[in-house]
């Protein structure tokens, strides 16, 4: 772990565990936008973690960004901070100055049609990579005059549809056209891995407090085993998501989706999406009826997980994508691709 990673993890954990508690989330879900929390993240420079120092950023790497994005999941942070981190990186790649304020990723855009934009109404602009007549560009859409139809996901996070289109700037970039979609999937993987950790922490705490039949729930072997399964799932999701971010550092986007970071991202989003049922059901089961109430905070995590698994491609989409990769490589080449995954050919590890 780099010094920046460790420092970021500490400050993210401190900030969010201090500010984002149950009362805050209840209040925020009613009022909508947490401006004060956003300002605090900006003071720490979190959204510019990947922007080069020369361009006024932190100059961190994706492993550093992972700590922030996972933290956003673990604490159910109601902000488009992960999206802004990626958007600022995309704009930095295109040497395009990023506007001040929260940004977002546009999942897909067909002409001027763009739907389910995370935090569209709150973001100042949105980003997407795509193919244009002149080649692949990063497209920046100014939201200043865009009218949105407000929609939400299961956790009441804004997922808005564009009714009108704003000013567009297209700048050439040396990335594949699907880069922004893949990066969207990658941040959702990390967020789900954070959620898994929160679901485990909550279940561990509750089972140590709640008593039935004269003993705490965590003294029952069945409950211990469910906690252990939840822990192993959380560990595996952390591992594969972390691996995808590390592969972004070590390999990044190259010519071939079968051998670059896209293989790792597809695996991460598929595994995290597939595990959502398991982690949510185990934590809810351990909590019993109280976890099913609005009053309890458990649903802030489970509702996010239930939506995030479908955003930027759900398990059906990514199982197809990864299946394509496997079948294209075939029985002869698949193992070679698995063992080469994440290895940077130009530098030596260790």
């Amino acid at each position, binding site marked *: 772990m780099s010094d920046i990673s460790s420092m970021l993890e500490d400050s993210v954990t401190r900030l969010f565990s201090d500010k984002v508690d149950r009362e805050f989330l209840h209040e925020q879900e009613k009022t909508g936008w947490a401006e004060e929390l956003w300002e605090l993240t900006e003071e720490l420079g979190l959204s510019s973690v990947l922007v080069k120092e020369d361009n006024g950023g932190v100059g961190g790497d994706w492993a550093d960004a992972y700590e922030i994005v996972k933290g956003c999941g673990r604490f159910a942070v109601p902000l488009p901070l992960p999206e802004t981190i990626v958007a600022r990186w995309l704009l930095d790649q295109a040497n395009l100055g990023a506007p001040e304020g929260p940004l977002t990723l546009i999942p897909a855009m067909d002409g001027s049609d763009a739907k389910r934009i995370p935090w569209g109404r709150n973001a100042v602009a949105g980003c997407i990579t795509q193919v244009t007549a002149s080649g692949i560009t990063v497209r920046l859409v100014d939201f200043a005059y865009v009218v949105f139809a407000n929609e939400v996901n299961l956790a009441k996070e804004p997922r808005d549809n564009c009714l009108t289109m704003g000013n567009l700037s297209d700048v050439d970039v040396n990335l594949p056209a699907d880069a922004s979609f893949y990066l969207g999937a990658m941040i959702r993987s990390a967020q789900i891995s954070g959620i898994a950790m929160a679901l485990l922490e909550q279940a561990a705490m509750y089972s140590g407090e709640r008593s039935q039949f004269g003993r705490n729930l965590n003294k029952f072997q069945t409950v211990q085993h469910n906690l252990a399964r939840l822990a192993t799932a959380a560990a595996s999701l952390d591992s594969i998501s972390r691996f995808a971010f590390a592969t972004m550092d070590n390999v990044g986007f190259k010519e071939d989706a079968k051998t670059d970071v896209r293989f790792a991202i597809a695996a991460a989003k598929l595994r995290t999406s597939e595990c959502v049922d398991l982690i949510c059901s185990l934590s809810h089961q351990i909590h019993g009826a109280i976890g099913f109430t609005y009053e309890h905070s458990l649903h802030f995590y489970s509702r996010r997980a239930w939506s995030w698994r479908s955003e930027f491609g759900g398990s059906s989409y990514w199982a*197809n994508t990864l299946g394509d990769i496997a079948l294209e490589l075939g029985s002869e080449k698949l193992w070679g691709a698995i063992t080469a995954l994440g290895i940077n050919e130009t530098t030596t590890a260790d």
Partner: protein
Amino acid sequence: MESIVDLLRYDPRQLPASAETLRQDVRDFLAVEMKQYSALKRAYTWDGADQTFSEKMGAKGWLGMMLPKEYGGAGLSNLERYVVAEETLFAGAPVGFHWIADRQSGPLIARIGTEKQKTELLPRICRGEICFSIGMSEPNSGSDLASLQAKAVRTDEGWLINGTKLWTTNAHIASYMIGLFRTDLNAQPKHAGLSQFIIDLKNTPGVTVRPIEDLTGRKHFNEVVFEDALVPHDALLGTENDGWRQVGSELAIERSGPERFLSCAVLFVELLKVLEKGDEQSAKREIGSILANLVTLRSMSLSVSGKLAQGDDVSLQAVIVKDLGAEFEQTLPGIVQKIVGIEPNLSDDAEPLAQVLALLTMLAPSFSLRGGTVEILRGIIAKRLGIS
């Protein structure tokens, strides 16, 4: 105490560039050696034993790679060993003869053995000459290992051993057993007073090895009975009455290696071969899911290997890999059944996929038993996380 978040952290580990050169050498070697093996033979992976093959591996310098050079090893880290292990497993090489010696007996002896034990045994392990077995379970002590009863009593002539070890893999072909025996009958708690011994299975009167047929009809594990078997004083491995801790130190590498998720690799490859000939699109999603699991487990297993190479305590992380790996491997035969309508069939003229499916369907129950039952593992996980 470390937080849950830190305890469950799996830092990505890249293999060193030298390991990747090694990988190509191993692949070239296997491309030639494995030609003679049918898919069914390959499906046994580390359950298949072939001393000739192990000797060839030894001649290449690929056994005991972590052992010091003066004892015939290569003085490398477990990351290099990891590459050789995963390549041989994926190819379905018959690594059973050297597997236990290379993975844990050799490193254990190198760490705590006497000079005489190291000089006598380690070079032969590195040459693939001797097979090791591990004597732990007994008729009345399975998961509750600390309750074991077989005992070793110190006499003027040596240690006098009595009792029975059960489910001892490869004892029928092994030259040695590293066994755990009770040396202090009055010690409390029950896991105190245990010691490890290196027992010469071929040349010790009073030792009887009886192979036990498993449900596939094959004989690979054994009952080993000790009746006044006298072993020399210097058969003691490590410190008297410190056996429980010594055994614990072996387990991290035993539980986190690639054998915990590659037992069904041959099945996956044979499945792909069949799909390539026909309607592969229909199975795409299942294949994608299997692949995501494989990549995830490998990232975890490699992460643990990296930490082991640094000398970190990874006992918890290793247990987690074993638990998840076993679950994954056990579900694969069922998934394959769902993808292709094929009946498992062990007969010689059956399709390779049908044969491999037959074998692994029947071996699968052992995946969550060997190396610690899933119940024991989950108990350990809950305890180590402080959530029990």
